[in-house]
């Protein structure tokens, strides 16, 4: 695998993402609204709690947790629909006759645009959180480790979405899968609220599912960092990613033989 071509794909899409700068900015304004609403909800909840701590989370860490989860979740756009539509409409023809791996191409291309969206969301969401609940106490040394954790979360998110996107060819529609998946990550993946506040039995199930390694763990490590947990989470993230990549490649190989390429 030639790394340089994939690096250039990322670079080109990073440049291309500035064409969608305002799109990202308007999405980030929506994030600001979500952060504002949740900042108010959590303020009321924490006011009712005399200790000021719920399952290890303070008001600030709870809101900043949401900023990170939203930044990871919204950074990639609608990959399931994108890949699904490319498979269903035959748009994939333009990728299959090129000397690269289709899924790697999509991944490195996605990373290029994710960087811009992720940073804008962190900036706008972070600013909103700072205004309404104040700063979160973190050690700046951990930031590179959090960046790794977020990148792995984004990668896992991509690989799971690409599996569903490929699968869309079977059911001939990607929208329903995309809707379902987004809700799963939003709720049982711990995007809206940390899994720690769920009932113990539900939390135990959610914590072992791959969805929690997309947003929950990276965001939790950001506000409540623990080196041992970081190492453990990183290993499991990598394991899920490798598993999902292998599955996606096999699925793609099998299903690409069924692609009928419309329009001719």
């Amino acid at each position: 695998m030639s790394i340089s071509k994939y690096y250039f794909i990322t670079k080109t899409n990073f440049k291309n993402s500035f064409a969608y700068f305002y799109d990202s900015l308007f999405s980030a304004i929506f994030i600001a609204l979500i952060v504002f609403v949740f900042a108010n909800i959590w303020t009321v909840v924490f006011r009712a709690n005399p200790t000021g701590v719920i399952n290890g989370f303070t008001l600030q860490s709870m809101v900043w947790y949401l900023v990170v989860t939203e930044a990871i979740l919204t950074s990639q756009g609608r990959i399931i629909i994108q890949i699904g539509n490319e498979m269903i409409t035959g748009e994939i023809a333009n990728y299959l006759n090129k000397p690269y791996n289709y899924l790697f191409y999509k991944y490195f291309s996605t990373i290029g645009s994710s960087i811009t969206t992720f940073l804008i969301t962190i900036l706008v969401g972070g600013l909103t959180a700072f205004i309404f609940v104040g700063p979160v106490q973190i050690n700046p040394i951990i930031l590179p480790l959090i960046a790794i954790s977020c990148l792995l979360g984004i990668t896992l998110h991509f690989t799971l979405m690409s599996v569903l996107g490929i699968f869309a060819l079977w059911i001939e529609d990607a929208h329903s899968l995309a809707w379902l998946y987004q809700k799963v990550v939003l709720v049982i993946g711990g995007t809206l609220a940390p899994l720690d506040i769920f009932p113990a039995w539900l939390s135990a199930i959610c914590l072992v599912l791959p969805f929690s390694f997309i947003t929950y763990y990276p965001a939790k490590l950001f506000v409540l960092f623990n080196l041992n947990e970081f190492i453990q989470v990183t290993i499991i993230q990598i394991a899920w990613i490798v598993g999902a990549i292998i599955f996606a490649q096999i699925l793609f190989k099998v299903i690409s033989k069924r692609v009928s390429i419309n329009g001719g």
Partner: protein
Amino acid sequence: MFKQEKSIEMVSVTNLSKSFKLRTPQKGLANKFFRYFKPQYRELKAVNNISFSLKKGEIVGFIGPNGAGKSTTLKILSGILFPDGGKVTVCGLDSQKNRKELAYRIGTIFGQKPQLWFHLPAIDTFNLFSRIYELDQKEYKKRRDYLVKRFEIEDIITQPVRKLSLGQRMRCEFVLALLHKPEVLFLDEPTIGMDVVIKKTIRELIKQINKEERVTVILTSHDMGDVEDICERVIVINHGEIIYDDSLKKIKEKYVTKKIVRLQTNKPLVFTKREGIKVIKKTEFELEAEIDTTKVSFNKLAAGFFDKNDIEDVTIEEPPIEDIIEKIYKEKPKNSHK
């Protein structure tokens, strides 16, 4: 040297078949519901046992009506689709087993599926493709500059593609497809949606590139003007089967059986009616007649006529290529395409 090159086989297709499974619609509410659990399919044979080969530097028109199987064949050749049966080699490589290897040696332009990045200037996509095809950067820049000049797009490659006209965009698409010096070029409806002037420019460029770089070109088009203007050889496909494969000249010889001749003379017309000539209009100095070339030799007839008359003006009209192809579709001489 070209003679030697001409014998190199660039594309070889043997007994190629491809079918698609289409879900059959069900009647009645209950059947419509149960089709999700037990769908019924019918088989559509898109390509049915076709064989042909192409030599280096050949430029071939692959024509047929909608759904004839031409694009399916092209997509199998370029490694995008998997055939059900038969053998396909392009540049000596199996187009399915060696798909990635083959990608370095072929170029594709799908008129309806642009490859340029819409929001970026064309030069950014050129640069990206130079990395994707792992080109030597020095060589690439030389090649890019040459093609940019050749296709006269120097002033537009730094503008975002979305701001370019269709013709400008298509010229950029051609440069993109030619950057890595492909040996075989697949063109699927390359002039679709273009006006007459741009079509002419694109056709000229295809011919020139074919001549200069000896690249083998396979072209599908609904526009017979493309085929007539560019291709030496035509493969006519219908219902997934090849129904004609020969030179454009021979098609005309075989299928053009009637010609309309209009004459104007300076002196009174000397004309003897005979079998094979149907007079449409005749005055003292004018004649319009339909000549049946199966009954009378057009060349001999014309020579005799020119001897006896003082001709001022003459026009000979042949049926358009569309009509000829339609005639071939209707005749459909199965398994006898030569």
